[in-house]
């Protein structure tokens, strides 16, 4: 990692990427910053509003502040629940993927399929699937006497969204772990067999340590993705019932595009973005440190 030659001419190779990403990230971001410190009287006349939008946002007693803090808490709960289910389940599935033969390809391809469905079609699939009148899941649950209604009852709505996310993304964790498992040399397993190690100690002493790298990628990608979730819940529950499943993105889009409340939306965008940025920084430093340790 550290013996790479230093050459500032490498900037020429990076330039095209820089131009494209600057165009689609910096300019829009400046617009947001602009809105976040101004107020509008309509008709494109803006005036300076200082930090008022931000003060509202951080004050839970105001309407917007309360909405923001509740959405943030909901989002954090959602991300934790989803991670707690998907990571162990993903590892379990990865351990069970066949090792060789035609079945490997077939299993991998069918596992990946849910991830290639457009997100609002994923929403549609589950919206239909969970309906008590025409959906298999909803009808089955009501049939065995479990009260289930994802548009009326917050618990049903939450479980539908969590199950949907598990259905949608567990395969990603499994594929990552599968890649990690495949990188373990056979000699390790042979050594374990000679030592008479059981299945569990093989897992704890050989497989889990080797999976640490991919698991970090998995945890953080899943965290980010679930923290930004928008399309699927917006189709299935629309943030309801009430505001029970209204996560940060959903609330933000409601404020920005629904109520066209630009100041509040912009302030919220910036804070939201800053939170993800901080988490991303933690992710990045962990990754590079691991890289450094590996090459050392």
């Amino acid at each position, binding site marked *: 990692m550290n013996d*790479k030659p230093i*050459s500032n*001419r*490498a*900037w020429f*190779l*990076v330039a095209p*990427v820089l131009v494209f*990403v600057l165009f*689609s990230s910096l*300019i*829009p971001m400046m*617009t*947001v910053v602009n809105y976040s410190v101004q107020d509008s009287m309509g008709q494109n006349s803006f005036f300076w509003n200082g930090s008022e939008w931000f003060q509202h946002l951080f004050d839970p007693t105001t309407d917007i502040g309360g909405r923001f803090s509740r959405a943030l808490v909901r989002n954090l709960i959602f991300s934790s629940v989803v991670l707690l289910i998907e990571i162990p389940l993903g590892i*379990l599935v990865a351990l*069970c*993927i*066949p090792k060789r033969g035609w079945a490997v*390809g077939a*299993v991998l*391809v*069918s*596992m*990946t*399929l849910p991830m*290639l*469905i*457009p*997100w*609002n*079609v994923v929403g*549609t699939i589950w919206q*239909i*699937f969970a309906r008590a*009148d025409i959906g*298999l*899941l909803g009808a089955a649950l009501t049939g065995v006497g479990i009260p289930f209604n994802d548009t009326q009852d917050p618990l049903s709505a939450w479980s539908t969204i969590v199950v949907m996310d598990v*259905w949608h993304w567990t*395969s*990603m964790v499994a*594929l*990552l772990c*599968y*890649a*990690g498992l495949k990188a373990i040399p056979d000699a390790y397993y042979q050594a374990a067999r000679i030592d008479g190690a059981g299945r569990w100690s093989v897992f704890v002493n050989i497989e889990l340590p080797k999976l640490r790298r991919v698991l970090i*990628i998995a945890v953080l990608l899943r965290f980010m993705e679930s923290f930004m979730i*928008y*399309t699927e819940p917006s189709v299935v529950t629309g943030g309801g019932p009430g505001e029970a499943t209204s996560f940060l993105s959903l609330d*933000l*889009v409601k404020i920005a*595009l629904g109520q066209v409340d630009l100041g509040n*939306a912009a302030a919220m*965008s910036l804070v*939201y973005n800053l939170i*993800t*940025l901080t*988490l*991303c*920084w933690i992710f990045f430093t962990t990754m*590079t440190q691991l890289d450094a340790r590996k090459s050392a």
Partner: protein
Amino acid sequence: MTRRLVIGLYLLVLALPIYWLINMSFKDNVEITSALTFWPHRPTVEHYVHIFTDPAWYGGFLNSLSYVFLNTVISVTIALPAAYAFSRYRFLGDKHLFFWLLSNLMAPPAVYAMPFFNLYSAVGLFDTVWAVALAHCLFNVPLAVWILEGFMSGVPREIDETAALDGYSFPRFFVRIFVPLIANGIGVAAFFCFMFSWVEQLLATTLTTVDAKPFVAVMTRTYSAAGMDWGLLAAAGVLTMIPGAVVIWFVRNNIAKGFALGRV
């Protein structure tokens, strides 16, 4: 044996909602709303015929495919040299630049919906497939750089040096020798660009109104005052799965490595 059972069960659970959608797409609306049936008792392809004969529907499908294609080509092309720079050289601000690129990958699209609307209206690209293709570069370019960098770092640097000694100029070396060496990585990067551009909806629908409307936005036509056209919605949903199923076949041997971003 337990392993087979677990994987079989998992795949079954994955398949159930998809089975239900496919099942529904072949039923007429009377059958859908009147009773739960596990296979279409009066199978019909009317919904598919409807989609393939109505220009608004198949036009939407072509729109989606064209911005996905444009985005994939742009992202991979410009990411190639950048990934090479990151994997082979140290330069002023390289770590910061890389982090900044990644941070765009983590930015919630909801944050960008409103400013993108303004930006692309201002430059006159609003409601074209180019607007969506460029907007998706926001997260696909960093992703492509990241994946390609992982794959390129797996190629020993001696190859670059040998080629230089043999008198290859940099562009010739890059195209003739290096690109074929990381062909797998390029395939995987293209697959991921395809995937994230195909599944992303918030930006795609915000940036288009009429002419460049993506397929999934056309799907909202099935909600009407007269009630939902469930069969049509299901048929449209089934069709959106096909492109993904096709492209995944081409990268099936490298998917796992790709998800680990070429870093295993």
